[in-house]
């Protein structure tokens, strides 16, 4: 994404944030839009590494005895897939790429509250990624992305400390992004832009930032304790000393369950934007959807024990966590119902972002409901640590988060690059991704309930049929991911030049040119309209309780 040569027949662009092309203007930028792009390059790279590891795992699982990889290499691959996807793609992607780019524009600010910390966040992300890559190249880690002790502290190979250091550094990148978003949303809103006139994407980014700031430090300390225990040989997780491996799991899941809400909440925000724009209609029940976002962030901190029903945790804690896990499902249900109601009596068009949004709603609902099955302690005893769980969280992560990220990327692509992508190719990619995804992960539900355990390099023959289906689906899904890369790159050179508001959407980010000028707004916008006030026949003006 370097130079943007003005082709002969198009008029020369007036100066925008992409005009300066020196290396220094990219590596020392404090412009939130450029930092968003820098993050985009980063996560695309890590996404490719993670997908490559997934492809190797899926290919290896085609045969029951697992001929492609040795057991040791297989373990390293699924650990690599887990670590890279969770910390270097799912958590940073929507907040750091789309959020960094769009949040200041949406609230009428010139930049985030602490631009230099924003750049530091990118550097920490890249350094953390570099250290993790070094750990992978220097032999890799075979503990799984969960690093359960005492395996990770006493039995795993020596690279664990390097990878733990990489994730530790990357954690601070998340904290800085979260801190930046909270202060920006609190302090830099344009005058007249009250909380209940903010677009939904800002609400979900705010809720995500709350989790980023409040959960990541516990992970940082946990990883520090793992490293200390590996060096010192003594630690509070070592059962021989009277330590407790379940204490590790408590601290780990205290971070990791809110982390899955870090991954899904921004996706919900993007879908709220897409559904309202392409149905040309106000969001149904705006205060409830906004409240549900924050409710998910807060309740998300109370439910981590449902990962530990069979881990030796007390039965009575199991009841408490199971009940709270059912409670956290309610706000998600409210959101899905409100999206459905938004579509009622709208005038719906099916550009690419809308296809991704509808795909998201369907798959996220399915993923969320299988979550209800896992929250039921009795069923979880049978399906915990099987492919049922793998299918559940991939439905949420890939079916939910990745589709929403793709939808958001297509929706704001004209604003980011000033170029339109070919919509027909986009729709094809969306449909291919949807089909590939379902073929990959639905058989895993069935296989999981049959008892196929997770992280198995070789498995009994009766599961082979489902594994072959899943690998076939994975190849289609791979095609579905490659298509956008092709036409996005194509659009940079020969895409139609994008107008300021290609989708005729409401929102402050569409009032500036695309690509936007370096300082976003010539003068801070006044007279803020209520969010999503699309003109629909005979609709009285929406009076939001501001």
């Amino acid at each position: 994404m370097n130079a943007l040569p003005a082709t002969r027949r198009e008029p020369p662009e007036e100066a925008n944030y992409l005009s300066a092309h020196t290396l220094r203007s990219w590596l020392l930028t404090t412009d939130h839009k450029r930092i968003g792009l820098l993050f985009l390059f980063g996560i695309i790279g890590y996404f490719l590494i993670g997908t490559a590891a997934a492809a190797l795992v899926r290919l290896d699982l085609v045969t029951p005895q697992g001929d492609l990889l040795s057991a040791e290499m297989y373990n390293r691959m699924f650990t690599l897939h887990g670590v890279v996807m969770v910390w270097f793609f799912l958590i940073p992607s929507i907040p750091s790429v789309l959020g960094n780019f769009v949040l200041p524009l949406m609230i009428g600010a010139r930049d985030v509250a602490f631009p230099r910390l924003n750049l530091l966040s990118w550097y920490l992300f890249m350094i953390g990624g570099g250290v993790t890559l070094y750990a992978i190249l220097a032999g890799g880690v075979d503990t799984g992305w969960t690093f359960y002790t005492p395996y990770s502290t006493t039995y795993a190979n020596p690279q664990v400390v390097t990878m733990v250091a990489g994730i530790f550094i990357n954690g601070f990148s998340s904290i800085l992004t979260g801190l930046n978003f909270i202060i920006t949303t609190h302090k830099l809103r344009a005058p007249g832009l009250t909380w209940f006139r903010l677009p939904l994407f800002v609400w979900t980014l705010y809720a995500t930032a709350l989790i980023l700031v409040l959960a990541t430090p516990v992970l940082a300390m946990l990883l520090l304790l793992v490293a200390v225990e590996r060096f010192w040989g003594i630690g509070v997780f070592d059962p021989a000393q009277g330590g407790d491996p379940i204490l590790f799991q408590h601290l780990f899941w205290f971070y990791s369950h809110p982390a899955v809400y870090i991954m899904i909440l921004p996706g919900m925000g993007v879908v709220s934007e897409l559904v309202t724009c392409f149905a040309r209609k106000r969001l149904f029940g705006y205060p409830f959807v906004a409240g549900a976002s924050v409710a998910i962030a807060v309740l998300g901190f109370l439910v981590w024990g449902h990962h530990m029903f069979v881990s030796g945790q007390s039965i009575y804690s199991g009841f408490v966590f199971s009940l709270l896990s059912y409670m956290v499902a309610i706000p998600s249900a409210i959101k899905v119902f409100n999206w459905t109601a938004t579509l009622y009596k709208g005038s719906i068009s099916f550009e690419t972002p809308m296809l991704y949004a509808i795909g998201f709603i369907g798959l996220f609902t399915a993923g969320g409901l299988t979550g209800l099955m896992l929250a039921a302690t009795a069923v979880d005893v049978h399906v915990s640590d099987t492919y049922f769980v793998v299918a559940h969280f991939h439905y949420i992560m890939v079916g939910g988060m990745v589709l929403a990220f793709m939808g958001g990327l297509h929706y704001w692509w004209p604003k980011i690059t000033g170029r339109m992508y070919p919509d027909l190719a986009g729709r094809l990619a969306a449909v291919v991704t949807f089909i590939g995804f379902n073929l990959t992960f639905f058989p895993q539900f069935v296989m999981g309930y049959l008892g196929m355990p997770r992280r198995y390099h070789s498995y009994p023959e009766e599961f082979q049929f489902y594994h072959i289906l899943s690998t076939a689906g994975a190849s289609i899904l791979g095609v579905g991911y490659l298509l956008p890369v092709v036409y996005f790159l194509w659009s940079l050179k020969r895409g139609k030049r994008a107008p300021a508001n290609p989708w005729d959407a409401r929102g402050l980010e569409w009032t500036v040119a695309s690509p936007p000028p370096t300082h976003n707004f010539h003068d801070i916008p006044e007279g803020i309209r209520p969010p999503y006030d699309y003109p629909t026949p005979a609709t009285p003006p929406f009076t939001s309780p501001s």
Partner: protein
Amino acid sequence: MKFPLLPDQASLGAGEVDRLMLLLLGVTVFFLLVTAGPILVFCFRYRRGNRVNRVLDPRGGFRLELTWTLIPLTIALGLFGASAAVYFRQRHPPEDAIEIHVIGRQWMWKVQHPQGKREINELHLPAGVPIKLLMTSQDVIHSFFIPAFRMKQDVLPGWLTTQWFVPTKTGSFPLFCAEYCGTDHSRMVGHVTVMPRPEYVQWLTTGVQEESPALAGERRFRQLGCSGCHVGQSAVRAPALNGVFGSVVPLQGGRTVIADERYLRDSILLPNKEIVDGYAPMMPSYQGQISEEELLALVAYLKSLGAGSAGNAPGVAAPVFAPASRQEGGAP
């Protein structure tokens, strides 16, 4: 290539879990219909350019929100109640269950029956009799998982976990390790063979005769010198162990704990973790001197000491615990 949808229901609990799963599946299908259905209809009916009445009545928003909050809430509470009941039964082993010792170590399962017979990666069970597994690990966390019984429980190093089931269907069912435990995690598998009861009794007598864990435990009890303090009128004041299993033990600092297998095991390895009220913490730790098998054998021996029987085993002092006045109700 047969492709079953449900694993065999080979234990009493399996049917219950499957019924609960079908209930949850029903709820999932219901909610999918209630959301995906209207979405597809709206997308078709209200597609752009389709001339249809789009005048919107903005009233009724709050009532609608309330309905689709309360209905999922009640369904969720119902589901929680249903699964909690089944889970409570899943984790309540009956007292008369046959206790089989299971030890997980990196990449194999070692099983020992109460009569002493040992097995590796194999588990032979009588049909129709409640079985309770007493499990611990020698190195990392494993998980003893039998899909046909719908039962799984992590096996922790330094901790004793239990799971129980009543095998009903005879035959051979796969056994897996479900918690990632290293390179050959996927080779830590085996088979559970359920046999009619007489066949099981006959099977127990075949093969090499091993000493039963309780007897081995008693031998080890004397070898390690435990009897020096805990038996008879010895100079050192230590709680007598007759009938200790299952009783409520008052600890220093006012807490009480039920003397279950875990408490007995912890008292041997980590004696100063739960010190009995009124006794000095002077018991040496046997960490590193006792293997997991011997530990389970000692626990079995201690449980055989007058557990439930009123009389004292010859030569074992009367149970000596804190004054009866410190009575608390039985644990909830």
